[in-house]
């Protein structure tokens, strides 16, 4: 009986603790019934061993060691390293769930998709917002036509500046726009069943003295005629009671919907820490996202959020950077050319 359960589990490893989402991903891999947490590899051995110890899993000194123990891996490195690790995993015939953004260039993203396709493994992109019950309800309502035609979306994904490599263009591929555009871009594509066609971006480095932007607003056209904007700023002050948030204001012909994905939170006025914090109690979106990926691999179906989805969201960022340079709207078709 026990051995049957074991063979049904998917062995999933984690590459790197460089990303701020890595602790949440590791906890998820340790907690999911359908997953055997196969261990952690990190090119920073000290960080990797400490994380493995904290999460009760093995540290693999070599990538090949992790691949040998895994059916799939989750990549939580810096953005620029996604391609390298994905190509290595594909070569080892290991499925990949990659942190967002999928890559820092569309060439890298396309190479990752191709590497996985030709190796016959699946590539997924980590977009947990699709797992929000509120966002899923909105998707169903839009699909059923309850809101009429959707004409406009104003999305925000503002956050605190995460520090570390996130402000280093070489490792992150950009700043706030690279970090925070894709969650909202993916949610908008998915909700509307439509594709972005044109992007105007206004970016600035105004708060932290970084070489990359910390403020930004993308204003986008969709092919079907709707328009959408995305606030991707690292605008939340250090005294803000939480890391940031994701909101969607969706205007349809028959109704307007407001979603605040992480609104479910207790307010903690903490005299000990001398500050106020929001303590989220909503569903664990990371767990649901990873479970969705794992279940698809186990059932040999396409993963719910693909590498192509990651590429489409990245295209909005890349077009945005070009728009910010040229101070003009940029067609998505032009950055594909």
């Amino acid at each position: 009986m026990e051995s049957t359960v074991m063979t049904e589990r998917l062995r999933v490893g984690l590459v790197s603790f460089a990303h701020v989402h890595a602790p949440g991903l590791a906890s998820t891999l340790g907690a999911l019934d359908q997953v055997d947490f196969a261990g952690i590899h990190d090119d920073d051995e000290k960080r990797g061993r400490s994380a493995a110890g904290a999460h009760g899993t093995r540290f693999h000194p070599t990538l090949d060691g992790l691949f040998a123990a895994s059916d799939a891996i989750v990549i939580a490195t810096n953005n620029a390293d996604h391609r390298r690790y994905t190509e290595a995993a594909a070569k080892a015939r290991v499925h990949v769930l990659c942190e967002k953004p999928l890559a820092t260039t569309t060439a890298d993203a396309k190479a990752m998709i191709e590497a996985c396709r030709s190796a016959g493994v699946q590539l997924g992109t980590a977009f947990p917002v699709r797992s929000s019950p509120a966002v899923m309800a909105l998707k169903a309502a839009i699909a059923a036509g309850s809101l009429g035609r959707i004409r406009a979306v104003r999305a925000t994904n503002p956050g605190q500046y995460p520090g570390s490599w996130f402000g280093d263009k070489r490792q992150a591929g950009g700043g706030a726009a690279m970090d925070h555009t894709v969650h909202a871009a993916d949610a908008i594509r998915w909700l509307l069943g439509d594709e972005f066609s044109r992007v105007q971006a206004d970016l600035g480095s105004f708060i932290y003295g970084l070489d990359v932007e910390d403020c930004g607003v993308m204003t986008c056209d969709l092919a079907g005629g709707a328009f959408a904007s995305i606030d991707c700023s690292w605008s939340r002050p250090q005294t803000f009671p939480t890391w940031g948030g994701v909101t969607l204001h969706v205007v349809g012909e028959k109704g307007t919907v407001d979603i605040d994905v992480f609104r479910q939170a207790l307010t903690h006025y903490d005299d000990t820490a001398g500050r106020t914090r929001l303590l989220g109690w909503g569903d664990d979106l990371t767990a649901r996202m990873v479970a969705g990926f794992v279940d698809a691999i186990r059932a040999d179906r396409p993963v719910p959020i693909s590498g192509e989805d990651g590429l489409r969201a990245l295209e909005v960022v890349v077009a945005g950077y070009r728009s910010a340079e040229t101070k003009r709207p940029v067609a998505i078709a032009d950055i594909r050319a």
Partner: protein
Amino acid sequence: MPLRIGVLGTGFAGSMHAHSALAIEGAEVVAVAAVPLTDATSLAKECDARVASAEEICAADDIDLVVVATPTYLHAEHAIAAARAGKHVFCEKPLARTLADAEAMVHAADEARVTLAVGHVVRFFPEYRQAKELLDAGTLGKPAIVTMTRGNFAVGSARGWYLDEDKSGGVVLDLMLHDLDTVRWWFGEPSRIYAKRFKGNGGLEYALATIRYDDRPIVQIEASWAEHSGFRTGFELRGDRGMLVHDSRAASPIALQSPSGPAGPAMMATPTLHETPYLVQLRDLFARIARGAPPLVDGHEGLRSLALGLAVIRSADTGEVVKWKAPS
């Protein structure tokens, strides 16, 4: 001698200004106009004023100031007639529907040496004034990114002329103009604009604009006639040393509900300030007129904010970035 006022228009703005004037010492409402005239009866009665046509009010001997609260496309005709007859003019925003009309109004007032004031009332809202003070004091540091929002139900469904783009300018000149004027007041003249908008059935309309300055800040403004639960405003003002947040939905000190469903003013009043910003605006104007001082927002200033609104519409219509240079 009291300031004698004629009010043109009995919609939201006209009645608000008439009621405000009633509460100001040294001011009296002597005549009220509407089309049709019978629409002015009840407001005139409340003000103990006579019902008169706009033409009569603009020409009357016993009127010192004309409040122009008619549909936007009629502002110029009424304001110019009043100014030429030597009356001060308080004109609702937007100053006019077109720049040419606005210029003619400013010219007429300058020629007649009368005051032309424009009702950019947000400059009298305490939350916006306080934000301005904090900005000017440097409390927030240098402004980095600012988002502003203003929404209402589809007003076009209630008042038909709003539906006609040529008469009203839609949600941009109705709602967004408040925040465009505020942005000029807070940060000065921007450098470029990018905007999108849509119009739907039943008066639905929605617009987004990004207002850029040469360096900083980035400003995004949302204006919506798709806020079906009613009027709301908000802003987030992020400077490099802090952030200021306003949300009208979270700022009401009183809320009423009743077992019979949505309860209105019939059950009880739900005031939020002792004096509305509309009243403070008029009192400030009357005091300035009395001492011969210019109004806080004069015709030239109203014209520049209107021009910014028209630039937003131009960007939305063309899909291109519009460079901004304020009319002198």
